[in-house]
């Protein structure tokens, strides 16, 4: 296979970053090999849709192989974290692929190991970072700075927005603290605000949500989305299936499988599937990477019906790890150097600074007589972005507020929970406090009234980079191929917890402004719980795993430079959200693709 015909670039992973880079390099007639740990792209989109429809536990992983309901990571060839494992046994290594050091909190986010990567179930939110997000430490004394500024990334943002196909209006987005080159326009017009957004906006705009953001102007703004508002790039316009995560049934939302298909169509890109890179080989003399060692496998069953079917090494001139933040770190930590230490880790920062957006969820009902009419449209069409930067960041972490369109589906698994409550006379949803059973038109009237008034919002709380939040290799637990599994140490800092306190304050004021009734509930039995100053909070993962191979301007304190190039090995690039030294408050995919674009251009200069 690949080893017989050296490639210009060997890329590990076919997610957002890897597929994008493969395509751009292939366009420039560079020979590229993509090595994907998981199975190939769908034969037919309907296969994935049917998986989703038939899942009683509908999670981000539901549509995708291997079967997320079968939890047996030790006997799975390329296992991944799942919501199922988080719920049914996050701290049980027999169920959870991620293992934990004693005292760790559960890491709330999951990722995919399949062609297209976690981007298969991204929601499409395509906000840019704010300029101050790049200077968190300089401005506020928290977390880490980037080695580049917003202005360095402006052109890459534009390229990524064109490639992904982002729908937004500049006139809306300039209100959110970002700037654009003169005359800039997004490739498609913005997505219309939902019925609920239109009710919320005039009641919340200009209102104070927290005491420490009183000088900022609260604004509900449409959210830029990698989702078509008109036919674009041979894909349809969104029809509002309210299913962006885990899967858009009509493929109106961009996902990396498109980039991978485009990459293959250049004729310069090859891809191999079910091939798991487990370590990086380095030439002892030149310190350049000389190859990537991998195992192959056939079985994607859980448990697997067979293990390794082969082993080998892939070689090229340049190597790119784009396997996700946790898998990138895992590969590097599993790559010992002859002289001691591990690959790309002179700084001892590989695996450290693990970040996510722990989310604070609020939910409630609109007042009687006022419908929100949820369970329609994209999962989110608006948010509050104007409170995400200010002097308060010296004291507590920032957040953005995402306004949901899917009722209580996220916080309460509705319409199922309420639907069953009124049949069994239970009150799991809190919407049947009298625990009444009703049928017939009484059922219809009750459920119609309740379901059509539901709303929720999520605060994506910025997590500051902390070296002790890290992934290491488990010394005990391996996957079915014999590769060590991740061992996670994860805590939330006081800075983050203070962010949650302000989110709670803002959430309650927000619901008051809407004239609504709040039903936000903390379930202390969940693993994803912390207590701060006597108050218990649940946090939810956002799927935004960042910061395990952070970039910086100093090789002593960072893993890669601003081009995501290893300080230690010049022909090794480690790309993706793991390079981000601060996560900001926005969903990170657009920034990841923008960084991948910047890195691709740098690689092309060297080829």
């Amino acid at each position, binding site marked *: 296979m690949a080893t017989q015909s050296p490639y210009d670039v060997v890329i590990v992973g076919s997610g957002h970053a890897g597929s994008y880079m493969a395509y751009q390099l292939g366009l420039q007639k560079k020979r590229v090999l993509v090595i994907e740990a998981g199975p190939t792209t769908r034969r037919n989109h309907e296969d994935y849709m049917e998986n989703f429809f038939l899942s009683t536990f509908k999670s981000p992983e539901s549509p995708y192989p291997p079967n997320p309901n079968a939890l047996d990571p030790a006997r799975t060839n390329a296992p991944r974290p799942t919501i199922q494992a988080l719920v049914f046994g996050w701290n049980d290594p027999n169920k959870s692929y991620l293992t934990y050091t004693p005292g760790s909190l559960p890491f709330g986010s999951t990722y995919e190991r399949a062609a297209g990567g976690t981007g298969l179930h991204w929601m499409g939110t395509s906000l840019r970072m704010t300029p101050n997000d790049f200077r968190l430490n300089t401005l506020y004394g928290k977390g880490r700075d980037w080695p580049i500024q917003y202005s360095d990334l402006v052109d890459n943002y534009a390229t990524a927005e064109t490639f992904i196909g982002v729908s937004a209006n500049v006139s809306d987005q300039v209100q959110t603290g970002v700037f654009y080159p003169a005359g800039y326009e997004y490739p498609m017009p913005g997505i219309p605000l939902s019925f609920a957004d239109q009710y919320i906006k005039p009641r919340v705009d200009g209102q104070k949500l927290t005491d420490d953001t009183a000088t900022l102007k609260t604004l509900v703004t449409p959210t830029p989305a990698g989702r078509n508002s008109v036919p674009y790039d041979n894909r349809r316009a969104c029809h509002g299936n309210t299913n962006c995560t885990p899967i858009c049934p009509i493929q109106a939302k961009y996902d990396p499988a498109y980039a991978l298909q485009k990459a293959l169509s250049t004729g310069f890109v090859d891809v191999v599937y079910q091939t798991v890179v487990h370590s990086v080989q380095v030439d002892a003399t030149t310190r350049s990477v000389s190859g990537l060692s991998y195992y192959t496998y056939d079985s994607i069953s859980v448990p697997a019906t067979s293990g390794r079917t082969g082993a080998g090494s892939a070689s090229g001139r340049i190597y790119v790890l784009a396997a996700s933040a946790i898998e990138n770190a895992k590969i590097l930590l599993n790559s010992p150097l002859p002289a001691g230490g591990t690959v790309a880790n002179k700084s001892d920062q590989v695996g450290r600074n693990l970040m996510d957006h722990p989310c604070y969820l609020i939910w409630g009902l609109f007042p009687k007589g006022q419908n929100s009419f949820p369970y329609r449209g994209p999962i989110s069409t608006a948010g509050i972005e104007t409170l995400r930067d200010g002097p308060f960041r010296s004291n507590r972490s920032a957040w953005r507020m995402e306004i949901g369109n899917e009722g209580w589906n996220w916080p309460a698994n509705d319409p199922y929970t309420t639907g069953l409550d009124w049949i069994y006379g239970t009150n799991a949803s809190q919407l049947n406090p009298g625990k009444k059973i009703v049928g017939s038109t009484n059922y219809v009237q009750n*459920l119609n009234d309740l*379901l059509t008034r539901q709303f929720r919002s999520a605060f994506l709380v910025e997590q500051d980079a902390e070296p002790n939040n890290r992934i290491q290799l488990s010394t005990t637990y391996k996957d079915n191929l014999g590769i060590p599994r991740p061992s996670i140490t994860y805590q939330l800092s006081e800075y983050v917890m203070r962010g949650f306190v302000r989110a709670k304050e803002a959430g309650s004021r927000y619901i008051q402004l809407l004239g609504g009734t709040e039903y936000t509930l903390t379930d202390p039995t969940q693993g994803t719980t912390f207590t701060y100053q006597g108050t218990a909070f649940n946090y939810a993962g956002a799927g935004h795993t960042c910061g395990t191979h952070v970039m910086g301007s100093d090789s002593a304190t960072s893993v890669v430079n601003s081009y995501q190039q290893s300080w230690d090995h010049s022909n090794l690039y480690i790309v993706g959200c793991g390079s981000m030294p601060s996560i900001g408050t926005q969903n990170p995919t657009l920034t990841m693709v923008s960084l991948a674009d910047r890195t691709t251009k740098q690689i092309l200069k060297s080829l």
Partner: protein
Amino acid sequence: MHVGESGHRRRSVIKSAGALGAVLLAPKLPLWSLAEAAPSVPAPSLFVQASSTLLGIPTASLKPSQGEQDNLLMADVFYTLAVTAGSAGINGMLTAYQNLNPETPDNIKALALLAVDSSGSAPRTDAVGTFARLTMLAWLFGTWYGGTEIANNSKAAQAITNKDYQQDFIISGRAYKNGWIWRIAQAHPMGFSQFSFGSWASKPPTLQNYGVTA
């Protein structure tokens, strides 16, 4: 009634789908959807009437007279499931329904099948209650809630005589997409919208648009 035959056919389809599934479907995908393709027992009108009473949705909406609208005709599927899960239970429920005073308002009739008394404060735990709920839930969610029913009512394990049906499963993709709960919410099943770009910015169709007069 050909209950036994139906059950046998269904299992046969599951068995044959094992080989087919390896080709068509992702590994470990539940095979209920293929099973649904099995020839089903035609639902008697009594089943549709009882469903209508339980759900508060007219029979004409549950089972449109236009035969060509086969994507909407779930009655035969749900009835087949129910008789396969426990023929005595579904028959008992229908008999109990038939014995209700026809002059009784539907809300009271439904409660008589679902709850121990008219206060609606506790679920009826016999087979009538079990199959009333399972019927209602199949229409609402496209899901067979055998496991949930037993978790809420341990006596249900006696009524659901077919152990394959003592668990929860989505009946089929078609059943999911036709779940009435989404229409009651004036919405659409997540992942299956019949609406167009921008529709979410406006009011949705009314219940009356779906033939529901509640």
